[in-house]
């Protein structure tokens, strides 16, 4: 049975009244982005670089709105300094990270940041959750969202390659 793990994510985002969806897209997020675009009270915010999204969502929170940041593991590397904004001010920051360089990766250039992602996020003081099986998505998202918005805290949900399928570009 195919688990609609994207649906599970959207359900949690809606329950937690997430309004701004900031992202640099990844293939693993494309269905989520497409479905968020169909939701009237969610606003897609495409970014030029992932760290922009941390600042956007900080501004959103000052204005009373919740958001989520979607990115690929490579984008985590772009975020490191800006993450201190969320940490020092204790802005709630929910990050959904589709993993590369982790399991069956075909592109060696993805491996350094893929391997660094959980370590660097933890070192920077973020809560790190991992989903490696589609059936776990809903409860992990709920757990992460609760800690993020009721903390507040900064949390990342790492969506493993075993969930999204290792990209192959036909190779």
């Amino acid at each position, binding site marked *: 049975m195919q688990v609609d793990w994207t649906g599970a994510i959207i359900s949690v985002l809606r329950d937690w009244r997430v309004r*701004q969806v900031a992202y640099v897209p990844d293939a693993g997020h494309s269905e989520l982005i497409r479905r968020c675009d169909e939701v009237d009270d969610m606003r897609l915010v495409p*970014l030029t670089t992932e760290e922009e999204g941390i*600042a*956007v969502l900080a501004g959103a929170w*000052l204005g*009373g709105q919740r958001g989520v940041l979607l990115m690929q593991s490579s984008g985590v590397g772009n975020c490191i300094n800006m993450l201190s904004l969320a940490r020092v*001010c*204790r802005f709630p920051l929910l990050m959904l990270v589709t993993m590369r360089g982790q399991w069956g990766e075909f592109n060696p250039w993805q491996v350094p940041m893929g391997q660094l992602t959980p370590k660097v996020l933890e070192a920077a003081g973020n809560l790190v959750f991992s989903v490696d099986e589609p059936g776990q998505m809903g409860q992990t998202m709920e757990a992460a969202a609760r800690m993020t918005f009721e903390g507040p805290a900064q949390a990342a949900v790492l969506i493993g390659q075993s969930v999204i399928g290792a990209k192959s570009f036909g190779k």
Partner: protein
Amino acid sequence: MNGTLDRNRAADYPLRRREVVAAMLAERGDMLVVAGLGAPVWDCTAVADHPLNFPLWGAMGGAAAMGLGLAMAQPDRRVLVITGDGEMLMGLGALTTIGAQKLDNLAIVVCDNERYGETGMQLTHTAGGLDLPAMALAAGFASAASISSDNEFKAALPAIRSAQGPAFWSIKIRAETLAIGAMPPKDGVTLKDRFRSALLGAA
């Protein structure tokens, strides 16, 4: 140095940063202000340590993006980002991210002294031929202009306060090191909570 940057011209610019910022913040009405790190923070705080200013002590490159998030969350309030040229350059892509959104309540003002003011007054790229307002227009801003004289500044003030956004101004100001004077709180939680409390009436 073999670059195209002019190390002398900004020392003679007529507009002075403290007066420019004071004029923008006089009669601020219900404007929400984000100040980029460094001198823009000192300039804003010299006017007042206002709870609806969010003064950045870090997050270089994030001021305009932060203004965007705030403006999208509060479409009925004017959001003014006051920042420096170095800080704006570090987040230049944010101009295109702003241009990709439909919103009319965001104004970005760069106090451009063509210097990195906190680290020894090194030249930024605006000390050459770089035209930031042209980049803002190319990114999709509704309006953008460069200001270098007192007449131009006075004429632009009403627009800075109320013209349909997203709007961008680069104000060429004299490159000078001023005494800091008043500082806002450094504690980010305090800054966040008092801003939200003043704006939303809630914790």
